[in-house]
């Protein structure tokens, strides 16, 4: 596609339920990032995939959070047993490495509300 596509755009769930958020990156982009943005806050790094290397999971806040990426395509971020503090916008970005630099193209985000 022309841009990074995220789904769902909005998700309301009850505390304790599992949620899956999906990201379709730009075709050919080798790197994919997930960030979390709480209301009025900056972007909090969650996880980073680069090609076939092992993902950098250093930003995942707890073992309730996990992410997978199939090759250089779709990624899924899963949050198990959701808590109210998980409420945030989850942003996905993909990038192509050009002259050693990754410039990110972001999706519009998935807004998660945990009741």
């Amino acid at each position, binding site marked *: 596609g022309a841009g*990074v596509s995220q789904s769902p755009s909005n998700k309301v769930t009850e505390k304790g339920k599992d949620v899956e958020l999906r990201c379709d990156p730009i075709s050919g982009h*080798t*790197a994919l*990032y997930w*960030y979390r943005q709480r209301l009025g*806050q*900056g*972007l909090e*790094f969650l996880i*980073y995939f*680069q*090609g076939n*290397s*092992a*993902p*950098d999971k250093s930003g995942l806040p707890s073992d309730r959070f996990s992410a997978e990426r199939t090759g250089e395509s779709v990624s899924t971020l899963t949050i198990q047993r959701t808590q109210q503090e998980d409420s945030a916008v989850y*942003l996905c*970005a993909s990038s192509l*490495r050009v002259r*050693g*630099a*990754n*410039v*990110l*193209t*972001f*999706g*519009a*985000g998935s807004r998660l509300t945990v009741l």
Partner: protein
Amino acid sequence: SQKIEQNSEALNIQEGKTATLTCNYTNYSPAYLQWYRQDPGRGPVFLLLIRENEKEKRKERLKVTFDTTLKQSLFHITASQPADSATYLCALATVRNAGNMLTFGGGTRLMVKP
């Protein structure tokens, strides 16, 4: 610990003036630094990239400086317009996993008044 600091208070300026936003960092040796713009309800959009061996970059009304001794980047918008009102984020790139991992500052909201 590593920190990226941007002024969390909103910057209010008059249309036509130059807006200057600051990004300070500690305990990083970034390969490069980027600035992004974020409008409400949207993902950030890339504006400019400056590398560690560059002092200044320009793009139309935008100018970025990068001082690795002071560990600071300044982002300038000249002849500012109300349409420039947004949150501006700086991001530092560190080498990870054969690529670059970007860490973002908290952003500064800019309000340009007509």
